[in-house]
């Protein structure tokens, strides 16, 4: 099956400024793909390129099998976009905002009315359907803007910061909905975000973009493996003595060790060595309360990648988790 979004060498320059450089993407249908990067890194330009609002300087891209250079209208029919500002028509009601956009996607009559009702209901706005959007809170506007991007059931969604400005409950609702769109409905989601926790929860793969260039991409697990050699294990002990630490440090499978109160963090080569490590620590006289394999959060991965990009060197094998 063809990828939902695919690009090769996609580049866009504005004068001397390279906004997006040599972007290679392959995003499968049903995937939630996180596009992470600071403001001005090229995320919005990428979304504009993939939706044919801007022409590439070089390279190509396809969305749902349609070339961005040849089929802009066909692509825009199949994509829904939540822009960062998510501006709505303030003088129109919530239902009229949705109706207008539905009409622009060629929806009319009963089918459109039903879709509007469903979306307003889902996003908790059914009670305010006839009210002017000018009277809505930030959270309500955001929910309505997301509903607007879904009005035509697009197979590909571009969401720019979908939960910013939402209270925790509404943010969870939106996240659950994005996950459902991907898992249940097999829609592809291109998620631009600064919210790394959100990306970690939702994205099967991410790309980190910096100054228009993707500095790393893959699943969070793949990126973690690339950045941190080996596996870090936290061992929580009943008591820690210097002699015990020395014994553990001298074990053949231990590559590195750090001590923090009653917790020692040990680096081994792979997760398969954890049972051996536990047996050895017990054999060395350690009384274990808990053992935990340390997983790096996407946030740690992101900042590590960015600092490496700035410093231009590889992470050392012994880096603390």
């Amino acid at each position, binding site marked *: 099956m063809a990828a939902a979004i695919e690009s090769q060498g996609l580049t866009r320059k504005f004068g001397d400024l390279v906004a997006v450089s040599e972007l290679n993407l392959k995003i499968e249908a049903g995937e939630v793909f996180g596009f992470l990067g600071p403001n001005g890194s090229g995320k919005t330009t990428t979304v504009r390129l993939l*939706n044919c609002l801007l022409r590439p300087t070089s390279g190509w891209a396809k969305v749902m099998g349609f070339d961005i250079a040849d089929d802009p209208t066909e692509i825009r029919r199949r994509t829904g976009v939540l*822009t960062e500002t998510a501006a*709505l028509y303030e003088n129109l009601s919530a239902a009229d905002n949705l109706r207008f956009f539905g009409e622009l*996607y060629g929806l009319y009559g009963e089918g459109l009315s039903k879709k509007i009702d469903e979306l307003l209901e889902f996003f908790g706005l059914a009670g305010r359907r006839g009210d002017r959007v000018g009277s809505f809170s930030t959270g309500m506007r955001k929910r309505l803007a997301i509903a607007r991007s879904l009005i035509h059931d697009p197979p590909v969604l571009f969401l720019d910061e979908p939960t910013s400005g939402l209270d925790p409950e509404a943010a969870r609702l939106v996240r659950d909905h994005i996950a459902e769109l991907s898992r249940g409905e097999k829609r592809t989601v291109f998620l631009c975000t600064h919210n790394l926790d959100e990306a970690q929860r939702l994205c099967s793969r991410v790309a980190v973009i910096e100054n228009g260039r993707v500095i790393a991409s893959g699943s969070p697990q793949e990126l973690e493996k690339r950045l941190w050699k080996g596996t870090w294990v936290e061992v929580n002990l009943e008591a820690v003595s210097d002699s015990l630490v020395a014994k553990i440090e001298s074990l053949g499978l231990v590559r590195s060790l750090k001590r923090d109160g009653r917790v020692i963090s040990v680096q081994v080569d792979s997760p398969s060595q954890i049972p051996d490590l536990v047996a050895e620590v017990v054999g060395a006289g350690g009384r274990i309360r808990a053992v935990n394999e340390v997983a790096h959060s996407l946030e740690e991965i992101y900042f590590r990648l960015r600092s490496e990009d700035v410093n231009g060197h590889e992470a050392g094998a012994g880096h603390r988790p």
Partner: protein
Amino acid sequence: MDMRLVRAIALKDVREVVGSKQLWLPMILVPLIFLVIFPTLSVLLPSATKLPVTTLGSSLETFMERLPPAMRDLVGSMDDRGKFIYLMSVFFFAPFFLIIPIMVVSIIGASSFAGEKERKTLESLLYTPITDAELMFGKILSAFIPSVAVAWASFIIYAIVVNALGYPFFGRIFFPNLTWLVLLIWVVPSMSFFGLGIIVVVSSKVRGFQEAQQIGGLVVLPIVALVLLQVFGVVYLSLSFALILGLAFLVIDYFLIRLGARTFVREDIITKLK
């Protein structure tokens, strides 16, 4: 071009205008002031203040002298008050009437083109399958139709007002004459397009609604010039003048719309958005 999409854009813009008092209030107030209050005062005031006919007469004579012979003959048989009402209704207020469609297109056009850019709603529109031509055409209609409609509605009200004021003097319905019908059917639409063309071009250069409206508002200057030229007797709004005026606007419209279409291109619009 999918006319359903064009209609959706136009209706949305009109709904937005209806929802904003800042936008629709001037469209009611300006016609009311120029075409109801001013004409009423200009007829009732001389009667109420019992201005001596000689004063009225001497200024009228000056204006009469500058009129072409055919027109002088037409009003020659009327008494001073009759002449005054006729000349005011048929000539003096005509340029003011032309201000109305220009004002309406500049308000709606500025809101629709520059305002939508400023309010950041335009970007979401650009992500939809609508083509640049459909979007531009929808927005043009959203300003053009109300402009002509407001002008025609104002004309009907004006006709009722001036006939009511003139009836005691003429004993018949004296308004409109043929020139006014040409203004209505020929000059108003071509001039509305002229105002719109200017607004579309200006909106592509400026950031916001206010700026677009202020610069676009300058299109009223030719109309002001017409008022002055008429007062000084350089031109007067004859049938042939109205026909030429409409034609001149139409020619300029053609070039303005072509220029406007060149500025209304997704890529250019989006790169100028902040």
